[in-house]
């Protein structure tokens, strides 16, 4: 079957969005394509006339240090993230989440922008970004004029597999704030060994500790899949922040809050809802302790 007829590799965002506008609904942006091409071949994504490859766009595939933020182009690959020393030191949860996606051949091609744009609630890299309070840069072409603006990551998800991007929009980059003193993050997941592309459950936490006590001053916790879009466990974060210290009891209460707020489902090839409920306990316990230990020495 012909899944696409034309393949374009524009050199700029304007060129990419112009092509997208030109082909209307008969075009699809492609980055690494490791999800999209399987959907086109096997999973009922209808054929498209044109694929518009954004990975050759200048600046879209670089990681940059911009003052208070580390900026990651939307077409940066999982392998680039995995190897970047700045991200390893300052965006640990993202690096840990991107390092476990697929095998090396997939990570060499699959991009973080593709991971986010696909809008799957269990997507590893997305969970990592979410815990790091990432913003996403959305580029919009209106009447030939390009405008790019930062917005919170969560704002672009519409539902499982659906993002809020309009036909004249694409992702430009992500930015994660550099961690302050006594701040660190961690990610962990549970996965079937092979053959299923998504994890049973992934959890990331980003903790900031008080200057001189064990109290958690700020926390971000992301869990997936735990709802129709990537899930931020706000109630659990509140438990951690409201607690006077960080101990077994607080961890248990945090887990209970996350379990109560998560909207878990059974997925046929991955796990039951009940199993996921229990695994929130296992994984959150692990990542909280890891992030705490890292923050204590940060």
């Amino acid at each position: 079957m012909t899944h696409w007829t034309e393949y374009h590799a524009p050199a700029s965002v304007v060129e990419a969005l112009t092509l997208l506008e030109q082909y209307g609904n008969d075009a699809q942006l492609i980055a690494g394509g490791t999800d999209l091409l399987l959907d086109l071949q096997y999973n009922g994504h209808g054929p498209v006339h044109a694929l518009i490859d954004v990975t050759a766009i200048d600046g879209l595939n670089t990681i940059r240090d911009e003052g208070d933020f580390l900026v990651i182009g939307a077409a940066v690959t999982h392998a680039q993230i995995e190897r970047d020393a700045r991200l390893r030191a300052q965006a640990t949860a993202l690096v840990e989440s991107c390092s476990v996606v697929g095998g090396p051949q997939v990570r060499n091609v699959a991009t973080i922008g593709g991971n986010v744009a696909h809008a799957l609630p269990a997507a590893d890299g997305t969970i990592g970004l979410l815990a790091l309070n990432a913003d996403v840069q959305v580029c919009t072409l209106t009447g030939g004029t390009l405008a790019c603006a930062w917005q919170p990551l969560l704002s672009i998800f519409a539902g499982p597999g659906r993002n809020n991007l309009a036909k004249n929009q694409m992702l430009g980059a992500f930015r994660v704030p550099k961690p302050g003193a006594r701040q660190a993050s961690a990610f962990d997941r549970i996965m079937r060994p092979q053959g299923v592309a998504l994890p049973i459950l992934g959890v990331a936490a980003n903790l900031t500790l008080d200057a001189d006590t064990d109290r958690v001053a700020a926390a971000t916790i992301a869990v997936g899949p735990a709802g129709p879009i990537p899930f931020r466990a706000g109630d659990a974060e509140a438990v951690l922040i409201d607690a006077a210290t960080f101990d077994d009891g607080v961890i248990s209460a945090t887990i209970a809050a996350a379990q109560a707020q998560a909207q878990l489902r059974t997925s046929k090839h991955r796990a039951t809802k009940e199993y996921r409920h229990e695994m929130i306990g296992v994984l959150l316990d692990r990542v909280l302790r890891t992030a705490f230990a890292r923050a204590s020495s940060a």
Partner: protein
Amino acid sequence: MPQLKLTVNGVDHTLDVPANRYLAQVLRYDLGLTGTKIGCNEAECGACTVIVNGQSVDSCIYPAFKAQNATVLTIEGLAAEWRTAQSPNLPISQSQENGDSEIERLGDLHPLQEAFVTHGATQCGFCTPGLIMQAKTLLDENDNPSDAEIKHCLKDTFCRCTGYKSVLSAVHAAAEKMRTGTLPGPDLPAVVEPLDNVGKPLYRPDAVEKVTGRTLYTDDYLFDGMLHGATLRSRHPHARIAGIDTTCALAAPGVKAVLTHADVPGDPRHGLVENDWPVFAGGQYPARYFGDPLALVVAETEEQARAALALIEVDYEELPAVTDPVAARRDDAPVLHPDRPTGNLLKHIKVRQGDVDQGFAAADVIVERTYRTPMTEHAFLEPECSIAVPAGYDDDHAKLTIYVGSQIPYSDRRQVAKSLGLGDEDVRVKGAVMGGGFGGKEDIAGQIHAVLAAQVTGRPVKISTRARRACASTPSATPPSSAPRPGPRATARSPRWRPSCTATAAPTPAWAKRS
């Protein structure tokens, strides 16, 4: 048509290829570099791994135009790249002292290729090019990797038969050669006294071919004028085929023939053990499983053949399905093989050992349970493929010839000849190297269709089944979902078991007998 420019193994190419090609297809079918394999075709198995601009990728889902202006390295170019990169002063491998002409060539190879030979890290060889290319990306960055680092690197590069220990040991050995210039040999068991061969490494005679990607599996054969077949399969587990309209498919671009049950000149049924499986369901033979073949489209390209499948109109009359071996024995069960005197019962195999009644009488505890085992997929990495070349097509093919990686070529010949109405002597089966079989490549999976198509069109015809389709439709990949229903009873003192097993017989008895 856009032009694709890329450098492969140091050679610049400018190609006029459709924009929808994948890199693996361009390498294999446009450039003839068939050392890069297509296994799962969905970025899981890594058999298609090549290196693009220094990064390993799964070329089966890598659009060719993503590699525009790129530098690509495949298994065929690995040894030359290594030799070019080396200083001439690098000590050559000790193994060259062996004196064997085949082994002398080892020193010319990349250390990974050499080590895969000397450490016995090849078997069927289908995964070997992918394993070596992926391991190369590791050794390029780290010439002393740990076991864990090697396993991490080879996570998505599957092997089904070589054995991972020899692969690990080969990668370590290659790394050592890259560090020191000397390739260590494999660990050998101690022997009491030296013998001529026992206790000494013997290299597989085909190992060098396998590590260089020169071994030809069926899909690697390319013949001038070769057509491609695609099979239409039943969408229902049990249905009478009231009619098939192939008119539109025949008129589709590139289509040369559309074959159905009416086109089978000889025996309309075939089978490994019993002659009970229609070459095409239709006519008096209903489709008896989801995936039973109904028609074959033959076209200039595989893509054209697949596209035309959608244009065939099938009039199904659905019949009640038999989905459970226990239900199949009920009096009101649909009869799958009306010409079989024992109905749905293939065979009752009785196994008697000792005095079971006495054992139970003496039992303290009797446990009765029903157990079911899951379906098991053979998961050979090389998808099934058959190529038929008509008699007299060229000097190499005086006889009607089938190229196929088959576990039982003589059975293939018998079944093909019978359904074609030919004598066994009129058919030659050329057993190609098989990329894993594990019992899954015993049955017919396209051989008869390919021959029929070659006879009708007068041209070579290839039928290649991609892994996902094979899992869903061909018997080799869909073993009987064996549903043993044992009623074990055991005593605490001396266990007694009385299992009664029922295996699914549908759709063909051959499967059940083997389960």
